[in-house]
């Protein structure tokens, strides 16, 4: 069990690294967010759960942390993406389509 946990942690930390790499390498905010959200979320999730696995006493609490990250990271990623778009951060030159441009809801005119 301990070994399994350590492996999970290892995989997690690799993903954390990949997340960082994606953030660094990708060409625009939106692509960076893709990497930043997916890899860091999974990486953190695995690392934290891995700790829980190696220390069964801690499992429940690590689960809560992990789930919290799983729940909130996409939300903040989304909020950042949306905000960037509204502020006018340019899409990468190689972007093939922008449906947002001609869509009302993107400009925040939606009624509550």
């Amino acid at each position, binding site marked *: 069990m301990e070994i399994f946990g350590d492996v999970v942690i290892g995989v997690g930390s690799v993903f954390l690294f990949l997340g960082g790499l994606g953030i660094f390498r*990708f060409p625009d905010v*939106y692509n960076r967010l893709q990497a930043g959200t997916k890899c860091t979320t999974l990486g953190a999730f695995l690392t934290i759960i891995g700790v829980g696995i190696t220390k069964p006493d801690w499992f429940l609490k690590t689960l809560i942390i992990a789930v919290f990250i799983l729940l909130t990271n996409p939300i903040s990623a989304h909020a950042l993406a949306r905000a960037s778009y509204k502020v006018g951060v340019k899409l990468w030159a190689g972007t*093939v389509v922008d*449906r947002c441009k001609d869509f009302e809801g*993107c400009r925040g005119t939606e009624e509550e």
Partner: protein
Amino acid sequence: MPKKSERSVSRYLFTFVVLLSLWLILVNTLAWEEVLTGAVLAASVAAIGHTYFTRRGLSHFGPKKLFYLIIYIPVFFWEVVKANLDVAYRVLHPKMPIKPGIVLIKTELKSDTGKLALANSITLTPGTLTMDIAGDNLLIHWINVKSTEPEEATRLIGSRFERYLRGILS
């Protein structure tokens, strides 16, 4: 449709149960002091927060819904792992093979919670990131655009999750 007060009680109880469970997980013990305190706190917090927390109350606990939830979790995780491998591939590839764009997809989910779950699921899965929701439309940033048509995009991106989510939340 149940009466408003009944619904309110139901919402309250649902919130209470979720909060108390959270508490017990947090404290990681069943010592009587902790349970008692947790009950009191969950009850008070639920009183403040139940109107925000849920619209449907205890009906979330329907067996069918739980069933869908149990199925959904592995499905979701599998998609997440695929997504990450995909990103890893693109990040590590020297040429960085990406073809990003923002596409529009449709959803049939009506509840806010459903839409949130769908949006989050999409964000965490292969090459997609929810940028905004407007009514039934989701705007998705797609790292490797395969189709710009809404119908096709919806099929490719959204419908994997929607089935289960509809089951969990309807």
